[in-house]
């Protein structure tokens, strides 16, 4: 288990400030944040390479202050691998190996055994990352710290290794903390997501929770929400049952109904928010498009005109102008083709009150 309480740390001019979160033993945590947000610094604090200037760090219940990196049972993989260039690949993997069997298993599962006789200087970026992963795993750490460890792998290899790391995490009962800037990866791997920016934790929780209920418009935009609208929320009282249609307990974040006024539009939302100025977040995939006034149960229904159509493989993003406010909807390319979506077309955009998150 990793537990950080109000951790401050300084590295050059960069500071981590008041960082708190805890990660249960055996769980997979993912730290997400833009470049320069302090993700790597956070891993170095946990690894014991950077002493915090304030706060408490506990590893498996033990106060880690004064605990040297070599005594923490951590395995650290940097994005740029930092393989020892004066050693061969095998010597790198064997550097801190717990025993020959673990060395062989780690190398085999990361697929680096065929590289054993190679010199580090001749490896590609992806191969370096695999060797660095094998080297850290060969020590059989209790705590695995990964800094963008798959970034140089090709998509196919990335999927395979991601699965393998997740499997080893489960089989060996590791507690893993991985840094990424890719929210999709966080969603695939993590039991817990920690959002970091400017050296501070903006939000932490399950990836689904963070994705669906961003704590701020900044978090929403960082996580790829296309529709973030500023306005004023008004409490309408207890929401009628037909406003709430999610699975029981799925997004049970309150049952009050709200009207949210933004640029002449009124959106309806359900949740547990405070009235007043704020932001409404609607994910593009929650918005459906029809060519006429369809009759579904969606509480929000707006007529508009298609401004822009962007097709990216199987998905198409459609920007609709609703009385001067752009709304972005994501639909399958097949649906977009069937609907004959083209710029200038009059359409109706609908979404449920449950799909509107106020923050």
């Amino acid at each position, binding site marked *: 288990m990793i537990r950080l309480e109000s951790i401050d740390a300084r590295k050059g001019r960069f500071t981590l400030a008041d960082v708190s979160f805890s990660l249960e033993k055996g769980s997979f945590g993912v730290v997400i944040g833009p470049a320069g947000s302090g993700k790597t610094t956070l891993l170095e604090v946990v690894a014991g*390479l950077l002493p915090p200037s304030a706060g408490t760090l506990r590893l498996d219940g033990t106060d880690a202050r004064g605990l040297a990196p*070599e005594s923490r049972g951590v395995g650290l993989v*940097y994005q740029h691998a*930092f393989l020892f260039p004066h050693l061969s690949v095998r010597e790198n993997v064997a550097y801190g190996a717990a025993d020959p069997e673990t060395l062989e298993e780690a190398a085999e599962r990361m697929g680096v055994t065929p590289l054993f006789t190679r010199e580090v200087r001749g490896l590609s970026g992806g191969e370096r990352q695999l060797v660095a992963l094998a*080297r850290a795993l060969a020590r059989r750490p209790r705590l695995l710290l990964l800094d963008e460890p798959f970034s140089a792998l090709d998509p196919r290899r990335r999927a395979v290794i991601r699965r393998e790391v997740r499997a080893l995490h489960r089989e060996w009962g590791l507690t893993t903390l991985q840094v990424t800037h890719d929210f999709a990866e966080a969603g695939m791997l993590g039991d817990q997501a920690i959002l970091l920016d400017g050296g501070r934790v903006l939000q932490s929780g399950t990836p689904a929770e963070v994705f669906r209920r961003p704590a701020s418009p900044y978090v929403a935009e960082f996580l790829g929400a296309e529709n973030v609208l500023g306005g004023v929320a008004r409490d309408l009282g207890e929401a009628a049952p037909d406003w709430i249609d999610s699975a029981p307990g799925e997004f049970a974040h309150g049952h009050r109904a709200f009207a949210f006024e933004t640029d002449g539009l009124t959106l309806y939302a359900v949740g547990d928010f405070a009235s007043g100025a704020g932001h409404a977040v609607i994910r593009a995939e929650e918005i459906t498009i029809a060519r006429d006034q369809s009759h579904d149960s969606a509480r929000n229904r707006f007529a508009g005109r298609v401004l822009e159509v962007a097709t990216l493989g199987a998905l198409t993003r459609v920007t609709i102008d609703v009385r001067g406010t752009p709304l972005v909807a994501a639909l399958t390319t097949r649906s977009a083709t069937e609907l004959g979506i083209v710029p200038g077309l009059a359409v109706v955009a609908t979404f449920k009150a449950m799909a509107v998150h106020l923050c």
Partner: protein
Amino acid sequence: MTSDSRLVPRLLSVLAALAGSLLLLFLAAPLVELVGTSGGEGLRRLGADAELRDSLLLTALCATTATLVGVLGATPLAYLLARREFPGRAVLAAILDLPLLIPHPVAGIALLLLLGRESALGGAALGVGLRIVGTPIGIIAAMLFVSAPLFVSGAREAFAKVDPRYEGVARTLGDTPWRAFYRVTLPLASRGLLASSVVMWARAVSEFGAIVILTYNPKVASVLSYDRFTSYGLSEALPVAAALALLALLPLTILRALRAESRSER
């Protein structure tokens, strides 16, 4: 672009090339002339002139000892300066650079004050039967004083080039700080350390000003060359000077080889 606007950069390029060539000629010509006219004689004299042979041997041995002492003492200092932030770091760096800035006879006088028989340290050394001034120990002290800062500077750069994250990874793989230094940092900085020690050795070999004040006799090659010049004139000094120049070519060749190897591995 007009022909006028092209003319200025071309003119500047020609001037820069001319200035560079003149400087190169100025630096190389005296040594080429020296080795060209007296190199053969210098080598021939090595067989016949016992004083010259002993002098070159003494120079090489004293320079090697000074370099070994310097490497042992200065490596931790260089590592400290490259890796750690601490109060007084800038002052320490300045102190280490100081011997490079003062005239070498002044360095010799300062060493004489510290190590002469009248000084506390020199007196104490004499008390245990160790004479510094006028012995090879004095030569080594003078060589160490003027050349060690070059090693510190080069070694500091060599350590700074090794990303501390290599050490960090080694620590997470079970190494203590010492073990990580020995297994990772030292091998990665080794080429830079070796190059710095070669530079230090070369500087020690060529020292004259501080040595001549501390230990005139026994004579190192630079002092012998000066002595022959003042006692017998240019014709007697030339072979000694040429032999010393040839000795200096040795570290230069090693440095070139190290740099070529480093480039081929990049």
